[in-house]
């Protein structure tokens, strides 16, 4: 994908207008943060997403969705990133929808996603760093079902979710890809303890403790012991989506910074006249453009089922995180003291970048994956 179809352009415009208006920092992020809302996002906005049809982007037309793909999701996520809009879109409508795609759980949950009533979360990480192969949470057979024991962390919106897609180990040992199984864990499962935490960007992510959580066989998503593939599918959708959102974060920070460079005077000049800042701004521009190209390439390859999709998801995530990290650092630095105050918005981009950069694997994780997928 390099250029947008007319439909895609329209979608982008819809999302851009809607989010700039309704998803703005003042109306959403600051609002929910300042009232210390439990969810960290607004359910009203989530229903507006639904009304615009955005929630169905990745849901097949046969289930009432739009039957589109990662590229269209990326268009929306870039706007979400640009406005720092807290929303279940990535976790529920992209990753969650992808994880249960083609299973009976789709029948159960797609309607709620489509209507903006349901929120899904995705539980994979067990340590502070992303390492899906290392999944250790135990799911042992008991009768017709399974009993889950262990812990998860960095479960985005885990405290708000109606159902949590959970990666567990049915056989094998941590480090192995075989033996993993995905489960649909309802929020009120007995033995499930949810510790709902605020993250640095005021989003919420949970630590989950599974104390012999008994589940029916029905709770299995896909095949027992063969969860690696659907897990990968969800993680790739998430990685591509987070990349697009990071590109939006980078763009938003950069736009705000460029505006400041054109307003702020020091030494009798606009600071944007100083060549050292100009060159850094121009370099940053190139980095963001390249990151955007990488993010959309990854999405396009996912949509076409290309074998290089996985490689490009890692390229996109690493590049977008790097570009966004540069954008927010330069943003805060170029704003000077005012950028250090909570009153100003620029550092909110920095906080969001930190969380998105970590989600589904940070730059170091993905560089390593690029090396491995390239065979060296």
């Amino acid at each position, binding site marked *: 994908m390099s250029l947008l179809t007319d439909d895609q352009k329209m979608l982008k415009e819809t999302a851009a207008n809607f989010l700039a208006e309704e998803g703005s920092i003042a109306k959403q992020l600051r609002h929910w943060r300042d009232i210390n809302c439990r969810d960290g996002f607004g359910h009203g906005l989530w229903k507006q997403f639904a009304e615009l049809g955005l929630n169905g982007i990745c849901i097949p037309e046969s289930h009432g969705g739009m039957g589109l793909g990662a590229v269209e999701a990326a268009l929306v996520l870039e706007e979400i990133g640009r406005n720092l809009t807290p929303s279940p879109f990535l976790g529920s409508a992209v990753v969650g929808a992808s994880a249960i795609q083609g299973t009976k759980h789709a029948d159960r949950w797609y309607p709620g996603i489509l209507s903006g009533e349901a929120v899904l979360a995705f539980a994979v*990480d067990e*340590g*502070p*760093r*992303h*390492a899906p192969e290392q999944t250790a949470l135990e799911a042992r057979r008991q009768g017709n079902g399974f009993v889950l024991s262990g812990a998860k*962390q*960095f479960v985005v919106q885990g405290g708000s979710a109606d159902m949590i897609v959970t990666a567990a180990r049915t056989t094998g040992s941590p480090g192995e890809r075989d033996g993993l199984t995905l489960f649909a864990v309802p929020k009120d499962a007995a033995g499930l303890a949810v*510790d709902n*935490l*605020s*993250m*640095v*960007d*005021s989003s919420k*992510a949970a*630590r989950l403790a599974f104390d012999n959580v008994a589940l029916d066989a029905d709770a299995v998503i896909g095949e027992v012991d063969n969860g690696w593939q659907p897990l990968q599918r969800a993680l790739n959708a998430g990685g591509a989506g987070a990349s697009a959102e990071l590109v939006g974060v980078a763009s938003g920070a950069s736009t705000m910074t460029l505006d400041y460079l054109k307003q702020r*005077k*020091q*030494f*009798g000049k606009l600071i944007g006249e*100083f060549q*050292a*800042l100009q060159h850094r701004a121009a370099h940053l521009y190139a980095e963001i453009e390249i990151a955007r190209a990488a993010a959309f390439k990854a999405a396009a390859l996912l949509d076409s089922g290309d074998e290089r999709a996985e490689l490009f998801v890692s390229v996109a995530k690493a590049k977008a995180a790097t570009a966004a*990290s540069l954008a927010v*650092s330069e943003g*805060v*630095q170029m704003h*000077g*003291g*005012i*950028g*250090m*105050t*909570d*009153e100003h918005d620029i*550092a909110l981009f*920095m*906080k969001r970048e*930190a*969380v998105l950069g*970590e989600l589904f694997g*940070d*730059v*170091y*994780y993905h*560089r*390593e994956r690029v*090396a491995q997928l390239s065979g060296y």
Partner: protein
Amino acid sequence: MTEFDGFRSDTRAWLEANCPAKMRKPIRSEADLCWGGRNWSFQSDAQQRWLEVMAERGWTGPDWPTDYGGGGLSAAEARVLKEEMQRIGARPPLTSFGISMLGPALLKFGTEEQKKHYLPKIARGQIRWCQGYSEPGAGSDLAGLQTKADDAGDHWLVNGQKVWTSYADKADWIFCLVRTSSKSKQGGISFLLFDMTTPGVSTKPILLISGSSPFCETFFDDVKVPKDQIVGEVNKGWDVAKYLLGHEREMIAGMGLGTSGSSVMLGPAARPADPSLRTEIAAFDVDALAFAAMSERFAAMWKAGEVHPASPSMMKYAGTELNKRRNQLAMAAGGSEALEWDSERSRNGATARSWLRSKGNSIEGGTSEIQLNIVAKHILGLPGA
């Protein structure tokens, strides 16, 4: 064996006898510091005693003249005192902008009356000071400040606003740059001292992105300042300010910001799981250890008077950029746990708060860009910088 060995052994014995055991414990947090001032509540009897005995001996300002409440020590003796205090892990008896910043400026630019009046009180920790330099429109361009002091006969009438005044809400007095003439940018600035309880002074803490509020906005609305509370001549305050800023930058540089003796960022046991992160940490450690060597070298050259006067700008630039990088890597190493803002496990977001705080390092005390300008112009001699 040197000529100071007598002084060293005397000092050692005195410290041994007078420094309370509690005051030899490492400083764990900001709360362990003693700032002094008229509203100060000592954290412990030991803290109070330690300040009193040290102030009594003049050793809160060791190299200040004894006439002004100082210790009258030579530079070499002061160094011995510092070393001996470090040897037993003695805490500084007083943390004070009066000692570290205003004092040296008063010694150089103050009148005899001012020195006699202020310095002993500063040395005894009786006045807590804050610094009124930056303004909303004058950050890097400090000399562009607009806070006015009009000559009203027997007093100055001060109106305007400062920003980034550290602990202005806790300070007793302020040393403050004001505009007394608009004819010349740098040549129209004066340096005033006044009481923060003077009518018309108000402060408002600034909430930072890290969640703390060590700085204030400070407002002056028809504040009357007696004429004799000016340091240096009218319209020559920029000289005082520059001297004081140089002193501040030396301090920052001397602190070896961003280095510790051993700079490896993870415990030796914690080999990072990601090879890419591990090698990035190794690349950082190379730079951190090299900068530690630079800090040592700089300190030695500083003592020997062999550094270029603009060198603190280089140290400030390199040290603060390194400290930002250290914090960035600590966030990476901490992974999602480091992102938790209010969990116990993350010690209330300690890593994240430190990371966010570190972003200010390259802004406060002169931005990295300003330091690079100074190096380019004054050390490298590049034209028109």
